[in-house]
């Protein structure tokens, strides 16, 4: 019965030949990497608008609205100041422990939030994915951009804390933007990669809090990782601890903002690691996500 549709367009043509004759393309075919990147670029306004919308939506039911964007890191810092600064009086051999702690915490939060957002970037937006056509990489990228906005307001708070605790304003502060940029690329790659994994394995969402907590303890947020290396005999393991990307980004920003913060590796080594991780995870995550492009609607 269905053959009649072919018969009137010219006998002897198969469906595929008919498609080729009129220049039709296969539905849902994955574009080449270059074409995909171009598509993504033309959707940059959507990514920005979507990230903004997400920030707005997260505060839409709160009476104070976007003020929470600054209040959240401020409250966070206050809690840690209360416990570690006032009650415990922790120093850990670090001159300015409160500033040291806050840098670690805020930088860690940037990656942690991008990771937990990335896992759900595709699986949590199936409705949007099944309704409209756009390069799916927009979603995890928007997650990263949303968290980047949160980081910026956290950085304002951080600069206040660092200055109030008596750190001088130096030329080294200029190293903060490139460090954050590298971390953002790293986070984007991570969010992309995890978005594809999370789209297939919905259990991942439940596992992530544990993975993230382990990562936090391993990244010297609350204390220096020198404590680890004292207890590890194997030099390979020590190198592994030092190459931890999150540790690298935290150390770089500490190095830039704080005068006498102890470093686990020399600064040039840290920068090398930072660039390496950003490139590896950024590009790797992007390609990995692109390869699954046609599958995301399946859920």
């Amino acid at each position: 019965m269905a053959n009649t549709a072919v018969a009137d367009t010219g006998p002897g043509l198969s469906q595929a030949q008919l498609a080729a004759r009129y220049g039709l393309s296969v539905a849902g075919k994955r574009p080449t990497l270059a074409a995909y990147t171009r598509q993504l670029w033309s959707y940059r306004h959507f990514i920005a608008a979507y990230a903004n919308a997400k920030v707005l939506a997260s505060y839409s039911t709160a009476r104070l609205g976007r003020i929470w964007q600054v209040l959240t890191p401020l409250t966070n810092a206050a809690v840690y100041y209360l416990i570690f600064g006032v009650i415990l009086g922790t120093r850990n051999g670090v001159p300015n422990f409160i500033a040291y702690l806050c840098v670690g915490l805020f930088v860690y939060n940037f990656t942690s939030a991008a990771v937990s957002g990335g896992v759900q970037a595709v699986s949590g937006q199936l409705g949007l994915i099944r309704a409209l056509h756009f390069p799916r990489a927009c979603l995890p990228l928007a997650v990263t951009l949303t968290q980047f906005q949160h980081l910026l307001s956290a950085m304002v708070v951080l600069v206040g804390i660092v200055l109030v605790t008596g750190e001088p304003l130096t030329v080294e502060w200029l190293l903060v933007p490139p460090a954050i940029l590298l971390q953002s690329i790293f986070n984007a790659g991570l969010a992309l990669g995890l978005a594809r994994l999370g789209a297939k394995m919905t259990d991942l969402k439940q596992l992530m809090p544990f993975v993230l907590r382990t990562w936090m303890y391993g990244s010297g947020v609350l204390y220096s990782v020198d404590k680890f290396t004292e207890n590890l005999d194997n030099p390979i393991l020590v190198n592994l601890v030092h190459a931890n990307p999150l540790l690298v980004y935290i150390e770089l920003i500490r190095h830039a903002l704080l005068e006498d913060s102890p470093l686990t590796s020399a600064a040039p080594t840290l920068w090398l690691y930072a660039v390496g991780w950003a490139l590896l995870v950024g590009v790797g995550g992007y390609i990995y996500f692109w390869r699954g492009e046609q599958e995301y609607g399946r859920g």
Partner: protein
Amino acid sequence: MAELTNTVPASVATINGERIPTVIVDDVHVIYRVHGAGTAGANSPASALKRLVSRAPAPTVREVHAVKGVTFTAYRGEAIGLIGSNGSGKSTLLRTIAGLLPTNKGAVYTQGQPSLLGVNAALLNDLSGERNAALGCLAMGMTPEQVKQKVPEIIEFSGINERGDFGSLPMRTYSSGMSARLRFAISSAKNHDVLLIDEALATGDRRFRRRSEQRVRELRAGAGTVFLVSHQIGTIRETCERTIWLESGVIRMDGPTPEVVEAYEAFMGGK
């Protein structure tokens, strides 16, 4: 079937008397893999990690063969109704044409990018209708300038402001009919080469239904092809001149709407 070949509707565009195909479906099979429905242990973090490591398929996966070898060609300017009982594979077929579900066998060829418009399309519920409209337009690939121009038109067409200024209220405050209208207004704001509509017209009130039928006709005049899935035979009769009847994932009949609908209604035991 002869009628289909001989009486080409006036709305169908042609080149040298030949109709221009926009969607070619070639022996398409779609198989769903359904996860879950197993024991509680099968979904534990530990076993998920184990599957992650061993790349073994979940033991509870079951396969559902939803579309079994469907072949047809749709032409520019046509409005095609898709009918069939519940679970006959209509929505699956639409998603496959939209390129959202990969085929397991066969291929779908399309001109341009088909857009699926369904009632389950969820935008951001915490944002206002206007912001959602702007976001939807950007997601369809419009430029910010085009969006600025389109958003008032979309709000106007959806009619959500008829009972006061609802356009600036969050979408979670909308009734289901209102949000369905807004979604339809957003998706139909752009001239699509191929527009796939899944039961969307069934939700609005009588007035909105008339308006959306008018919009579907306009879209067809814009040389697009429209697919319409609906259980409301009346809507199919009014908007489509060709109808495909799908049953258990197989095409049972394909032809002019009156004939197919008559056979379908006879099959379903009248109204």
